[in-house]
């Protein structure tokens, strides 16, 4: 979606909308991945747990999309070339991959249970510290969504930390698989702290989130007996719409019906 900039107030609002879409896209895409486990989990209780987490993510995405749509619909029509009126569904189902602003880490395929739980651990640690900042956001609606989501994320973080520890300190095989997952995922972690022009609150907050995040990872890895990875290549671009090959495939699947049968109620 290209948003044409008009004046100062609108520019401020457009930034906020892009930020909301970024938060929503992150939640939707990792929610999509988590939902792929439903009916295929390693044990029934965990099938239920990860489906629950997927539901939380989709709920967060809906809250952010709904609020973004509300704000978008208040803008003068000429400031947006996007289908108006916007709804949570036009935003999720009718944007192309290069409009999506999610971090790359959310779109990678699930891999095995080690990869899946480690991804959720990395990502929910990030969300945990981010939402703690957002509950103080000057926009009361953002603050409210963050507060509600923070409760869920706190659980995701505990659940995924437990799995990282359990697999790190489980069997030789689970330790090795966790190691493989660390090496595969680490190159997608630093994008989480990369500055971008729409990110609110103030940019220096990301630096603080990164410090807290590093501390959290260090502690959990220590308990799991897992090594912290060396510096590695870092991939980025998701927030600017430069994605991996996986995102267009996710969207093709997800958007199928909305694209094939336009303007329908479901």
């Amino acid at each position: 979606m290209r948003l044409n900039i008009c004046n100062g107030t609108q520019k401020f609002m457009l930034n906020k909308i892009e930020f909301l879409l970024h938060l929503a896209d992150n939640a939707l895409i990792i929610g999509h991945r988590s939902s792929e486990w439903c009916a295929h989990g390693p044990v029934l209780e965990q099938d239920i747990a990860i489906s629950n987490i997927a539901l939380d993510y989709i709920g967060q995405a809906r809250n952010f999309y709904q609020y973004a749509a509300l704000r978008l619909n208040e803008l003068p029509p000429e400031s947006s070339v996007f289908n108006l009126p916007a709804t949570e569904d036009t935003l999720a189902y009718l944007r192309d991959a290069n409009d999506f602003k999610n971090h790359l880490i959310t779109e990678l395929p699930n891999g095995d249970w080690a990869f899946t739980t480690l991804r959720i651990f990395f990502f929910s640690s990030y969300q945990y510290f981010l939402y703690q900042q957002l509950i103080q956001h000057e926009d009361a609606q953002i603050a409210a969504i963050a507060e509600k989501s923070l409760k869920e994320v706190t659980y995701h973080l505990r659940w995924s930390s437990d799995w990282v520890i359990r697999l790190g300190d489980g069997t030789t095989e689970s330790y090795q698989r966790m190691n493989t997952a660390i090496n595969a995922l680490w190159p997608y972690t630093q994008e989480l702290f990369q500055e971008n022009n729409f990110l609110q609150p103030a940019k220096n907050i990301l630096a603080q989130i990164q410090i807290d995040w590093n501390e959290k990872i260090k502690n959990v890895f220590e308990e799991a007996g897992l090594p912290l990875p060396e510096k590695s290549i870092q991939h980025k671009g998701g927030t600017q719409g430069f994605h991996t090959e996986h995102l267009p495939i996710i969207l093709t699947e997800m958007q199928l019906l909305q694209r094939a049968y336009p303007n329908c109620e479901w």
Partner: protein
Amino acid sequence: MQNQQDVLFQNKVDKEIRIEPKDWMPEKYRQTLIRQISQHAHSEIIGMLPEGNWITRAPSLRRKAILLAKVQDEAGHGLYLYSAAETLGISRDEMYHQLHTGKAKYSSIFNYPTLSWADMGVIGWLVDGAAIMNQVPLCRSSYGPYARAMVRVCKEESFHQRQGFDILYTLGKGSEAQRKMAQDAINRWWWPSIMMFGPKDDESPNSIQSMKWKIKRFSNDELRQKFIDVCAEQVKVLGFTLPDKDLKWNETRKHYDFGEINWDEFWQVIQGNGPCNKERLEARKKAWTDGEWVRDAATAYAAKNKAA
């Protein structure tokens, strides 16, 4: 030959006194229940597959959330039911083993493919609907843990049926293409749904004993008729038709007459020759095999931390 214990047991059942895990029960009663409850549990778990299929393709975020919650409920039902079966002295692993080796059966309905979004509507409306019809009487099963599990299950099933009906209702009010999609799904699922009540009464050998033990309260044909009567009315509200040219209200019987069920297809699917028998079982086996190292790691971790 009837011994004292058998007589006492039957007296309790006749007086509607619940049988609990520690109570004495005839071995045949235990075995029948294990078979029935584990079959039911497997059906919940296998049943997650055809619908789980469409979670990533749900056409709106609201529908996605509802479908995901629904499929997750089915996992919960599986869990309650496996726990109920475990009170009879069989482990969940053993029941899985029976499922994976083909020894245990599950509801044949899940061996049919889900080919469009409308199938999510029809499964909710017809499949969950038939399940409710079958299961509400089980809330009064003579076996306590099963009856209690069924009370929880049935509450959620009625929400499942409503969301399915709602999907179809929305499609019915939609475009020509949506209406076509829905009618096609109804056409494919109708006959398999009414087969869910099992063979005709005169070909259902276990039924009489099960009725006497009150682990079954109505006959297959009674429940099937009741279901058909309800659906024949509901389909009018939806604005669709059921694919049975013989479906007609019979004023004398005060029931709908219906056409001949294809029993050959019914037995074929039970014997493993349905359209998706192989895929469904393979998917469950794969989840179980792929998960083995995870379960092993969890066990190893728990053992270490207990020791520490």
